[in-house]
């Protein structure tokens, strides 16, 4: 006690002969504060001087952790005062004080929330801010932060503001239980986020944080109350901001793709390339984390929310744009503390988003490539979640009229390099001479690729259903709008038949786990769509002939499918109804098979041939259409529209949870120290 008395009287005196010369001055003051004393009582200038001292985040957090719950409660007054003073300081002009106040706030919030006080029956907000003043204090805090974010402040300072906000929104695992967010709901930071996204310069520096913050805020009590951020995001019509959000998302995808590419350099092609890739990978692994590239849930979720909530965002997706190669927005993988002065911003090239060197691209193109990488590996739970989110986003896009019209626009063609994993039966081919095609072709390719590459024991049933749903949506659009996409449909038919074949041959192992009839039904429905409405969207009469040819050729598969379904429906298994449904859905396919097979056989016999060429079969098909009658099935062109609630709520709640723990994990102490910030400011007058 005596010691502390001495300190109390000397700690503000410069160069005083303290007994503990090794302790930082700020630490001494913290000690006083944490003892429950008010160091400012005798010193009117105390706080001004206090915030000039470099905040020691680590120490504050450690001290707070040390305290017991009761001790903490006893310190409420001081903590509230500190919070109040910090908030007040944010209004000041002097950046050093603001930085210290921000860091102190970060430390306080993290330190106190980490204590996990919920079982003590008092609220964290009370300890941190004080119930009586919480509303006005939080309002002031948010207002000040807003001003700092949109003001002409240094990049580092704004960065810190975002850090503080991100800390605030991630203090609890379940975002909906984070009561302090009520204040951020009342005092909106939405406009500041939007302004950051709209400005190309600030977007480069803070776009990722802004996007993250927005995504988390949108997910606050999403399903139980009206979240103003959802409302605001869904009516957002600021094209610049939407485009900005698109840039941030697409460059994050791009980063991911690029990293993946460097990790998966094709090793084939001689000793030299193997050697160079080895040498190259040595350097790569040194620099970056050795684990495989991690997909970022947060970006996917951000894209999902934007696509799902805001309809104007779809138009942003379709914008062609040229990615800036010079200054990609800061993404989490290569974050370095920025120490760019505000004045330096003007030096940055104004027209940075249109570098002449880079090829123009489109968010959808990047996203499709990203999906192809994500989808090739869905073995573990996390990757499965990523793949599912990709599928959900594609479903939303596939349902959208405008997006579809863009996907099918023959004027807007792109080369999309889809990633195709090397498999036993095929080598990894890098087709550099892809023709530029409408994006719908690439989307269909992606779906075909998915179907072909995931026929495994642990069947990703959910993804398969979504995949078929996406194809169905696209076909419905084509039928409705009579778009004749120049696509080689045969590869889709082959893929679908292969899937059926796989289901049939693994019936015994799959049947206990999955309703394979439901899945088969979806496949057959697609075939029915082609058979009955093919005239509205197939590119040529010969493609319709080819469809019949494929069905006749693979008639064994359909026959077996029918008998399996018949068996299930009659012996009253678990999936009786689905099986019965399947039998009736197969009626047209069976009609085709039954109609043409005898015709072909008799033709073969008549011409005394042992086997027919495909042309000969097609001839027979062409000459026998007229005697075939098909049954028109209902609702072939109807689909249930995607709806997040209630089907997907559990998935998204879990996803947000993992994102939040990710974010919390990533806001490291080192980032908060921001040595550079202080250096930067100390060099200023």
């Amino acid at each position: 006690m005596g010691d502390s008395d001495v300190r109390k009287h000397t700690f503000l005196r410069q160069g005083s002969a303290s007994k503990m010369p090794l302790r930082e001055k700020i630490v001494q003051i913290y000690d006083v504060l944490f003892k429950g004393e008010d160091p400012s009582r005798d010193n009117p200038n105390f706080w001004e001087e206090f915030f000039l001292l470099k905040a020691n985040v680590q120490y504050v957090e450690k001290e707070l952790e040390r305290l017991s719950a009761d001790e903490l409660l006893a310190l409420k007054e001081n903590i509230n005062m500190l919070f109040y003073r910090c908030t007040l300081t944010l209004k000041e002009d002097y950046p050093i004080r603001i930085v210290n106040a921000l860091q102190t706030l970060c430390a306080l919030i993290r330190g106190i929330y980490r204590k996990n006080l919920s079982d003590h029956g008092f609220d964290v907000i009370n300890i941190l801010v004080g119930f009586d003043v919480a509303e006005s204090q939080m309002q002031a805090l948010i207002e000040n932060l807003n001003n700092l974010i949109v003001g002409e402040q240094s990049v580092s300072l704004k960065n810190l503001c975002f850090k503080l906000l991100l800390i605030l929104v991630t203090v609890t695992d379940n975002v909906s239980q984070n009561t302090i967010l009520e204040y951020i709901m009342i005092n909106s930071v939405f406009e500041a986020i939007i302004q950051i996204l709209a400005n190309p310069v600030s977007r480069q520096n803070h776009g990722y944080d802004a996007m993250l913050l927005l995504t988390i805020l949108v997910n606050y009590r999403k399903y139980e109350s009206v979240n103003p951020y959802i409302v605001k995001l869904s009516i957002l019509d600021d094209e610049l901001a939407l485009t900005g959000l698109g840039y941030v998302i697409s460059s994050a995808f791009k980063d991911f793709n690029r990293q993946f590419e460097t990790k998966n350099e094709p090793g084939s092609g001689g000793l030299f390339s193997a050697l160079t890739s080895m040498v190259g990978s040595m350097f790569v692994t040194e620099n970056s984390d050795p684990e495989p590239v991690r997909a970022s849930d947060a970006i996917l979720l951000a894209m999902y929310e934007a696509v799902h909530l805001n309809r104007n965002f779809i138009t942003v997706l379709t914008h062609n744009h040229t990615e800036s190669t010079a200054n990609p927005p800061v993404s989490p993988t290569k974050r370095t503390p920025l120490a760019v002065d505000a004045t330096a911003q003007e030096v940055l090239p104004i027209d940075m988003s249109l570098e002449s060197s880079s090829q123009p691209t489109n968010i959808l193109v990047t996203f499709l490539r990203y999906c192809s990488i994500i989808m090739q590996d869905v073995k573990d739970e996390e990757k499965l979640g990523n793949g599912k989110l990709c599928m959900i986003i594609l479903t939303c896009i596939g349902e959208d009229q405008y997006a579809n019209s863009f996907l099918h626009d023959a004027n807007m063609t792109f080369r999309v390099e889809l990633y195709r994993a090397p498999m036993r039966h095929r080598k990894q081919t890098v087709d550099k001479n892809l023709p530029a095609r409408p994006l719908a072709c690439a989307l269909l390719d992606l779906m075909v690729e998915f179907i072909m590459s995931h026929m495994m024991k642990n069947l990703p049933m959910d993804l398969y259903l979504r995949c078929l749903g996406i194809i169905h949506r696209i076909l419905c659009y084509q039928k409705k709008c009579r778009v004749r996409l120049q696509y080689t449909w045969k590869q889709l038919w082959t893929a679908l038949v292969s899937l059926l074949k796989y289901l049939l041959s693994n019936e015994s192992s799959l049947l206990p786990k999955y309703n394979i009839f439901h899945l088969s039904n979806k496949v057959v429905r697609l075939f029915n769509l082609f058979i009955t409405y093919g005239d509205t969207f197939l590119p040529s009469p010969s493609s319709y002939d080819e469809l019949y040819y494929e069905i006749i050729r693979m008639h064994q598969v359909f026959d077996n499918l029918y008998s399996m379904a018949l068996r299930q429906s009659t012996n009253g298994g678990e999936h009786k109804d689905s099986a019965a449904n399947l039998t009736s859905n197969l009626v047209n396919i069976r009609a085709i098979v039954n109609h043409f097979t005898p015709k072909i056989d008799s033709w073969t016999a008549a011409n005394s041939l042992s086997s027919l060429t495909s042309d000969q079969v097609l001839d027979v098909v062409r000459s026998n259409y007229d005697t075939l009658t098909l049954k028109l099935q209902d609702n072939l062109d109807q689909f249930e529209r995607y709806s997040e609630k209630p089907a997907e709520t559990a998935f998204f709640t879990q996803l947000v949870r993992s994102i939040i723990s990710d974010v919390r994990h990533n806001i490291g102490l080192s980032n908060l120290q921001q040595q550079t910030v202080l250096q930067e400011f100390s060099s200023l007058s």
Partner: protein
Amino acid sequence: MAVNGTNVEVVVECINGEGEEMKDSVKDLDGVGQCRDTQAMQNSMQSNCNGEDVSLAENDSAYATDSMRDLDSRSQDLSSTLTEESAQTLNSSGDFSETDDATQMNGFVRRQDPSKMDLSLNLQKIHLNANGGAGNEQELSNERAVGKFTDQAPPPKQSWLLRLFESKLFDISMAITYLYKSKEQGVQSYIGNKFFSFSDEDFDFYLPQIFNMYIHMNDVADAIHPFIVARCRASVDFSLHAAWLLSAYTSNGVTPKGRKQSRAAKLRKMILSEELKPKLNKKENVNLPSPSSPVSSPTRKTHQRSRSDASAAITTNSNGPLTLVRCASSSKISIGDLTSGRAFSSGCTCFDNSASVLNDLAGRPQRECVCNSPRLQPELEFVTALMAIGKRLQGLPTREARTNRLFAELAMLNLNLPARIWLPFDCLPANHHIVRITPNAAVVLNSKDKAPYLIYVEVLDCENKHTSPLPTKLLENTLRYTRSEENLPDCHLSDTPPGRFSVYSKNDHDDDCWSQEDDVILQYPQYQKSISSDSMSQVSHDSSTSDKEPVYIAAGDIRRRLSEHLHEPSKSFKRDPDDPSAAALKEPFDEKKKRIQEASPYGHLPNWHLLSVIIKCGDDLRQELLAYQILKQLQTVWQQEHIPLWVYPFHIVVTSSDSGMIEPIINAVSLHQIKKHSQMSLLNYFFKEFGGATTEEFLTAQRNFVQSCAAYCLVCYLLQVKDRHNGNILLDSVGHIIHIDFGFILSNSPRNLGFESSHFKLTHEFVEVMGGLGSDMFEYFKILMLQGFIAARKHMDKVLSVVEIMQTAQLPCFKQGASTVRAMRERFHMNLTEEQLQLMVENMVESSMHSLTTKIYDGFQYLTNGIL
């Protein structure tokens, strides 16, 4: 009409100058038989002589001889005497009247014979009004007028010239010619002042000539400077064109380096620095808020929807410093910065506030802009941005890469629209604001190393582009936009103050914004028409599961519909990634317009229009501009003479010596593209497009073809247009051919290979379309050519003066210097009789048709550029 009359006046003047010979001249006229009313004519001349001091000062005679020299070229006899000269002049002036020459002469002697004033009645009337009287009083006023413009008291001797200038027949063409030819300061300054009385439209036709003279002729520059400055002050458009033309015609390095800035450069700088604004009332100026003050400068995009205020509410928040910060940065930096979304905004809000919107609605005149923001800069930035795109496209190797790049660039531009910018053309509607550049309708045109491109610009017309309020921004896909708002809980949009939200839970609220009803927008009107024909596959039946009878369809029907659809005769070209322009240009403009209108968020507005423009970067369009002027002159001449020749002068805007814009010719594709895509001869293509040889449509198309072909043959001969491969000849949707690309005219030709020695391009295919040799239409073709030639010859001055003044502009077509104009003058063959001329036309047609060089050139183009 006016020009002809003037020539007569010139003659009168000459006659006066020569005194004695006057009577001879009249006699001569009589002898030629062109003028029956000789006596009247003579009287008129005499009366003129009496009214004035006959003696002519040296100055005047200089002009007189000048004008004689000018007229000289038209004389049929090269060794022309004054008398023949006047005869010729009178002859040509007489020709213009439809009925007979006498009428014209009657018109001429109107002062003597009031009963025959019919033709020039109007002119006369204006004349009288302008001068407040007739006869002698008129001359008095003339002299007074001169006194105003020259320092010394006007010598009475000038008045003959003055009479000419004062005459109603003195038109802009003559004014320009005199300005160019005269070395006399008084005359120049008189004309400089005279410009104020011409209509802006007439004057603006000669802008290239005016600014070329301004650059190269100091004395002329002195004379016209006040007029130009006044026009610049008054008109933003004029300022823009002035700035562009000045930079285009000075860039050849004419001005010696090291010396102080040339006069033209100074003028240009003055215009660009916006010194030349309309003068404002001093008093008014004082009260103005400065542009940097928070009151007047916009804190956010002013064209935002009011609805979106909720989302853009940061500035309306109570926090003051925030607003200020935004202000300071936005208006200064953002102009020209495409990423800002306000690249074309001058920061002026004078016309977008509620008061002026109200004015606009009420039809009241708008007040002036008072915020002192730049007038020209938005438009200049727009043009700069377009040119920058062209430059960037040039770096890309494939046409496909260029196309993709172009789409991306235009999407960027669109972020900054709508704005107070417009196409700097004489297009309809003249007053408009650009609201959107249809991004995926743009086309990269075929060119090897340059990258010209065509864009479709959506505009909203308005009362006055400078003062009408700007249209508000609409996002793509407005239908969905409104729906997403409706789906939201209403309480959030109305009464909550911006930036704050009341939070309450509403558990059963479904915040999923997608709903089934959205599907109604899927019902595209254009697809509904087909329902009746094959309703089977369109309508989905909601039956089966239970009681209803199942519906059966025949597989054969499906197959049949599919093949029927695909065998529908299609007039469109197939899409070809290497030649994207072919398919795009083949689509009829009206159809394209409709298609774009349906997709555009602005399409539903009644004042929506679609315009198009070709942006050329890296190409010198000054020659194209000259060609445009000549074509325009010829068109006017032929119209005046009622010769059904058809040319299409397309507008050119020169923005610098190597960039500019071209008005695209809608509904036209090049012969090359036709051959490539249709793989048939031109005649068969005509049959395919217009129907069989006896259908009315085909005959009309054939007539159009002949009329345009004859016109362009003449143009090609007179201008020596070279590089006539099939890529440079277009065919429009009604059969007209249109020549484009006047990069090689007069004295230069591609690489100077001298390949195309024929007079013009007339291939066998062309003749075939006309019906072959000896057919009626082919004869008609030759007759048209002859008539057109005669008419052009008669008005040679008009055409030649346009060319002559531009000699100093260092265009490649004047490579051979002064002989260029002389050679062109010779090509008018003033000395030939009509019979001789007819023979010449016959020969030219004959030799062109059999020209080996045309074939060689086409072959050469095929080998080098793949042009069929």
